[in-house]
C-alpha cells in the first residue's frame, strides 16, 4: 500500500518533469534559429570559433536604413501587395465561408475540393501556366498582377477558416435582429461581424503572412520588376553578406511577430478558427 502510493507519487513527479522538459524544449527549439540572426545582424567581425561576435557594429542596420539599399522601397511594395491581398481575400472569402459553413447543397463536396485545390496541388504546376496567361493579359511585371496571383495560395485559407467559424455560428441571432426591425447592414455590422470577427482576424493573419512571405510567385509574375522583401532577401542570402542578410531577416519577420502579438489568443482560443483545417 505504502509502496504503491510512493510509486504513484514518483510517477506523478516523473510526469511533471516530462511536462517541464517539453516546455523547455519548445522554448529552446523555437528560439535556437533566431539567435544567430540577432547576433549576425549586429556583428562586425565574427569568425569561427567565436561563440559571440568579437565586435558589435550597426553597419548592417545603417546599410538597410540607407536609401541606397532599396529596403524601404521593398518594404512598401510588400505591405502594399499583402494589404491588397488581405482585403480582397476578406471580401471574397467571408461570403464563400458563410455559404460553406452554413449551407448544405448539392455539389458541396466538389466546391470544397475546388477551393482547397490551390493549396493541395503544388504551386509550380499552376504558376507556370498562370505566368503564360498573365503574359497574354499584360499582368506580368505589375504589382496588381503579383497581388492577384498571391490570392491563389491565400484565399483558400481565408475560406477554410471562415467556413469553420460559420459552422459554429448561430444564424438565429440574425433572424432575431431582422424581426426586431434591423436592416441588412445594421444586422451585419452589429450581429454578424462581432460574432465572426475573431475568425476573420485569424484568416486575415494567414492571408497577410502567406502573401508577405511569398517568393517564387512574386519573382515569376513580377519578373524582377516588383521587388518585395523576400525577393531582396533572397538576393542577399545568395550573395553571402551574413550581417545584412540577418538584419533583413529581422525586418522581414518583425511584422509577423507584431501581428501575432495581437492575434495570438484567437489561434488557440475557442473561436474554432483552426478547426477549419480538420477537413480536406
Amino acid at each position: 500500500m505504502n509502496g504503491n502510493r510512493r510509486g504513484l507519487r514518483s510517477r506523478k513527479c516523473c510526469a511533471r518533469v516530462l511536462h517541464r522538459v517539453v516546455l523547455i524544449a519548445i522554448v529552446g527549439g523555437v528560439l535556437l534559429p533566431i539567435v544567430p540572426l540577432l547576433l549576425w545582424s549586429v556583428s562586425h567581425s565574427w569568425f569561427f570559433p567565436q561563440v559571440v561576435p568579437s565586435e558589435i557594429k550597426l553597419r548592417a542596420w545603417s546599410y538597410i536604413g540607407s536609401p541606397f539599399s532599396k529596403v524601404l522601397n521593398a518594404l512598401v511594395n510588400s505591405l502594399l501587395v499583402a494589404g491588397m491581398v488581405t482585403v480582397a481575400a476578406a471580401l471574397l472569402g467571408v461570403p464563400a465561408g458563410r455559404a460553406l459553413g452554413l449551407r448544405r447543397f448539392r455539389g458541396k463536396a466538389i466546391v470544397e475540393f475546388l477551393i482547397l485545390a490551390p493549396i493541395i496541388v503544388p504551386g509550380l504546376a499552376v504558376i507556370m501556366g498562370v505566368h503564360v496567361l498573365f503574359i497574354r493579359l499584360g499582368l506580368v511585371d505589375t504589382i496588381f498582377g503579383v497581388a492577384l496571383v498571391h490570392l491563389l495560395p491565400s484565399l483558400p485559407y481565408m475560406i477554410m477558416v471562415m467556413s469553420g467559424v460559420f459552422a459554429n455560428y448561430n444564424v438565429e441571432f440574425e433572424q432575431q435582429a431582422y424581426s426586431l426591425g434591423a436592416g441588412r447592414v445594421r444586422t451585419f455590422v452589429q450581429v454578424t461581424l462581432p460574432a465572426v470577427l475573431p475568425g476573420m482576424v485569424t484568416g486575415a493573419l494567414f492571408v497577410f503572412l502567406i502573401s508577405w512571405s511569398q517568393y517564387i510567385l512574386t519573382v515569376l509574375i513580377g519578373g524582377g520588376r516588383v521587388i518585395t522583401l523576400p525577393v531582396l532577401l533572397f538576393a542577399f542570402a545568395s550573395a553571402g553578406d551574413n550581417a545584412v542578410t540577418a538584419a533583413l531577416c529581422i525586418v522581414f519577420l518583425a511584422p509577423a511577430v507584431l501581428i501575432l502579438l495581437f492575434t495570438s489568443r484567437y489561434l488557440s482560443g475557442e473561436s474554432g478558427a483552426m478547426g477549419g483545417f480538420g477537413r480536406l
Partner: protein
Amino acid sequence: MKTGLSLIILLAPALIVILVLFAGGLSLGLSQSLGYMPIIGAYGFSLQAYFQLLASPGFLPSLLLTVSVSITATAIAVTLAVATALTLRKRFVGKRIISFLYQLPLTIPHLVVAVGIMMLVSQSGLLARAAFRVGLISDSSQFPVLVFDDLGIAIILVYVWKEVAFIGLIALAVLQSIGNDYEAQARSLGANSWQSFRHVLLPLIVPGILPGSIIVFAYTFSSFEVPFLLGKSFPAMLSVLSYRMYIDVDLDARPQAMAMSILIALFILILVLLYRRISQRLLRSSA
C-alpha cells in the same frame, strides 16, 4: 429558388477567382507540357517531354530525395506536434508566453527560417562554434555536414521548425473538442496514461490532424525556396529542378519543366483523393 440564388452570390466571386487562376493556370501548364507552345510555332500534342524527363538521369535521384525529405519532415513534425499539444493543453504557469512562442514559427517566413537554420547548423554555424568551445570538435570541418548535404537535413529542419506549430495548433483544437471525458473514463477503468493516450486519445486525434499533415506533406514535396537555398545542386529536389528548367534559356526545356510540375501535382492529387476515399469509407463503416 431564392436560397439557391443567394448561395451563388456568396460563392461565385471566390470561385471565379480560383477557377480562372487555378484551372486556367493548370490547363495552360498542362498544354505546354504536352508540347503545345504557339509562341515557338509548336501546335501539336505529344508526350515527348514526359518521356524525356523520365529517361533523364537526374530525375530518379531527385525524386528519391524529394520523397525522403518530405516524408521525414512530415513524420517528425506530426510526432512533435502531438507531443507538444498534449503538454500545452494543460494549465501551467507562463502558458501565455509559451503559447505565443509556440505559435511564432507559424508566422515566420520560410526564407527567414532557412537563413537562421543555415547560420545555426552549418560547419561554421553557432552549433559548430559551441561544439568547438566545449571541446567536441577541434576544427570546423569535423562538424557534420548538415547544409548542402545528401539527405537534405537542413531542409528537413526548416520544415519541422515551421510545421510543428501548424499541426500542433490543429491538434490542440481537436483535443479541445474531445474534452477530458473519454480520457477520464479510460483512466477510471484502470488504463495508465500511456494506454489511455494510445488507445483513446490517439485514435481521436489522428483523423483530425490527418488533413493538416497531408497539407504539410504536399507543401514540403513541392515547395521551392528552402531547397533552393539549403539544398545540394545535385541531386536537387524536384521543385528546384523544375524551376531551373523553366528559366533555362533553352525553350526546349520548358515542356519538361511543365511536365515535371504536372507530375508532382498529379502525385499529390492522387494522394489526396486516395485519402478522401479511404476516410469516407471509414466514416461510413463506423456510422
